[in-house]
């Protein structure tokens, strides 16, 4: 039984890491820009497809890990500013429903762009997973990628984000704009620049989530939908805009799903949503949510 619990926990950690990487970008963008970006799922998918393409093109195993980072950065730096300046900047003062519709429209467009560029046949490029090899735990084989790299990157991302937002001038500027945009502008902070930077980071995080997922799964049309739905569940449970909350919730969902597979397989599919409903019934603002204005 002890071994089973350990195995379930290890699986849960890997799942939680993947979920967190996508949800954290979404919650960061919402926390600062106050826009629930449905197209976040597309950025995840494009990051995954681009990473897969780059890994395939490079063909050198040790370079494949760098290719994942390069793909995420490319998507963040190119698509992030393009979307923020070209689209979102025009709707910051509009109704939430309109913002949701606009990002949903963008999501639909980007879904078709994916199909145009990468087609509909599943893509699979697992060079990074093969490069890192396997680990045996209690007679069970895991991939090092799944057991070490994914949780490691997720933890590093969490710590880096928290440090950036709390300990650096730029990060504190973002927090200031989140806290009160008008006051921040009054003391000379360029909120447009902060929005641009935040969205670019959020887009890069979404793409990083996709890039990290790419070597472990087949990329098919619709992969972005799956992830955006789960990410919404995570950030709603955590409380919109809560980064540490997203980490804790991703962990709860990852472990919950994993333990369900072992002990109640029928519940596996609904675990994230059961958790969300249970939390929202008790704490309508989410696990870490509150009525205060500050979101980061």
């Amino acid at each position, binding site marked *: 039984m002890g071994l089973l619990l350990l195995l*379930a926990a290890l699986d849960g950690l890997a799942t939680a890491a993947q979920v967190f990487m996508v949800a954290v970008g979404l919650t960061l963008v919402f926390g600062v820009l106050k826009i629930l970006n449905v197209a976040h799922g597309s950025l995840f998918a494009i990051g995954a497809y681009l990473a897969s393409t780059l890994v395939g093109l490079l063909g050198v195993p040790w370079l494949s890990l760098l290719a994942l980072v390069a793909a995420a950065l490319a998507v963040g730096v190119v698509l992030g500013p393009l979307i923020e300046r070209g689209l979102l900047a025009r709707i910051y003062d509009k109704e939430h429903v309109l913002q949701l519709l606009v990002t949903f429209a963008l999501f639909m467009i980007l879904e078709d762009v994916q199909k145009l560029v990468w087609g509909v*046949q599943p893509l*699979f490029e697992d060079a990074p997973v093969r490069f890192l090899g*396997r680990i045996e735990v209690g007679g*069970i084989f895991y*991939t090092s990628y799944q057991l070490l790299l994914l949780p490691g990157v997720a933890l590093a991302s969490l710590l880096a984000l928290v440090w950036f937002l709390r300990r650096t001038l730029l990060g504190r500027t973002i927090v200031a704009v989140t806290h009160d945009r008008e006051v921040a502008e009054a003391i000379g902070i360029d909120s447009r620049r902060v929005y641009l930077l935040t969205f670019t980071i959020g887009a890069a995080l979404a793409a990083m989530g996709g890039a990290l997922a790419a070597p472990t799964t087949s990329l098919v049309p619709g992969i972005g939908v799956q992830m955006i739905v789960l990410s919404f569940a995570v950030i709603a449970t955590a409380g919109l805009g809560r980064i540490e909350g997203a980490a804790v919730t991703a962990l709860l969902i990852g472990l919950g799903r994993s333990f369900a597979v072992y002990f109640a397989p029928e519940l596996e599919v609904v675990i994230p949503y059961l958790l969300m409903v249970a939390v929202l019934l008790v704490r309508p603002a989410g696990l870490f949510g509150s009525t205060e204005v500050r979101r980061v």
Partner: protein
Amino acid sequence: MTRLTRRTAFAGATAVLAAPWIVPRRALGQQKPARIRIGISTFLSGPASVFGVPGRNAAELLIEQLNAKGGIAGVPVEALVIDEAPGVNFLLGECRRLVQNENVDVMLASISSGSCLAVAPLAEELKMPNIMWDCGTQRIFEEGNWRWSVRTQANAVPEIVAPLLYLLSIRPDVQTVAVVNQDYAWGRDSWAIWKTAMEAIKPGIRVVAELFPKFGATDFSTEITRLQALRPDVVFSTSWGGELDTFVRQAAERRLFERSLFVLPLAESSLERVGKTLPEGVIVGARGDHWFLHPTARDTDRLKSFVAEYRKRFGLYPIYPTFHMAQALFALEAAYTKAIAANGGAWPSREQLMNTLRGLEFDHLTGRMKIREDGQGLEPMLIGLSKHVPDYPFPVLDRMVLFPPELTMNPIGTKGLEWVKGLSMETVAKAPAPIPYKA
């Protein structure tokens, strides 16, 4: 003699002009049309487009080839393709539009079983000939009597019974089984067929895990860990598309194939994508009597030229939806040809076309098949073991068995899930001899 007055002349002219709208088209004499319009519903988006697009591609290629030789009885064929991904309501609206506004002569619908179950009643209402070209649920002709629909392929019962018979013929000592199926109708229904048939043929086989990851799952790590811990003799999965590819890759990376024998009834469609990650010795199904290296048809000009042309145009080997689309189009061509001959050379009505489709025997790319009187198609089931050969960068099928429909398909008037309870080891013993892969 009646005098022609202005009033009677006006009434007569009105009647003549109004006739096409008042009298149903079918009741008027059937003239050879300028073209045959076929409405095709398939998945052009979403995860199932891995099947839908190859099906559409096959239609494009075959219709082009058909028209190059003059069409059907000299009438060119035209296809109007619609996407069934947005859901059943959208599909039904599109089918209505195609029939009522675009005047399609026949529908080829669909891939999803849910779509087929919804389109069949609509075909009755519109009196629209409908060929179900790829959907698998056995319920369609078991639970309904559809005058205007036929299916030009087998269904879920033989698709699941055949790999089970194959498994028990090569591994009669199986003790434990686990299932990893997608959590939707096909995943659940196919497992119900397998489990019921398995309990009938060899009672006592223990099911150690029933895992149904959500439809569209991108990670099977937890399921794989559990299967490694349980070490079942057999892992059964009817997953398909990207999910099957992911499951196979992740299982291979974690050496699960070394611990359990895998039975993958839909894996023929993934072979080229997963490559030699799929090890040797996995039981692979083809959802019918077709494969680009079909054991009895691989050297025929018809198959060879089709495979070559398909590869040239689309860059991939044809997979089962490609062949299913071919079966539907060949059936349509054969039905028109036969109905025209029976009609003394005159163009057949829709009723005549449907009457001809029932009981029709026709040749397709890899063999010959029949449509039963209830509308259900009968075709053998090709099952084999994966084998690595130098000729291809992906596994091929070896020790192939073509299970005849008599062994695997329930007769008219019976329910598949009940019928499989009558299977036994005697059924297993009747399996035809395996055919080895020929280099």
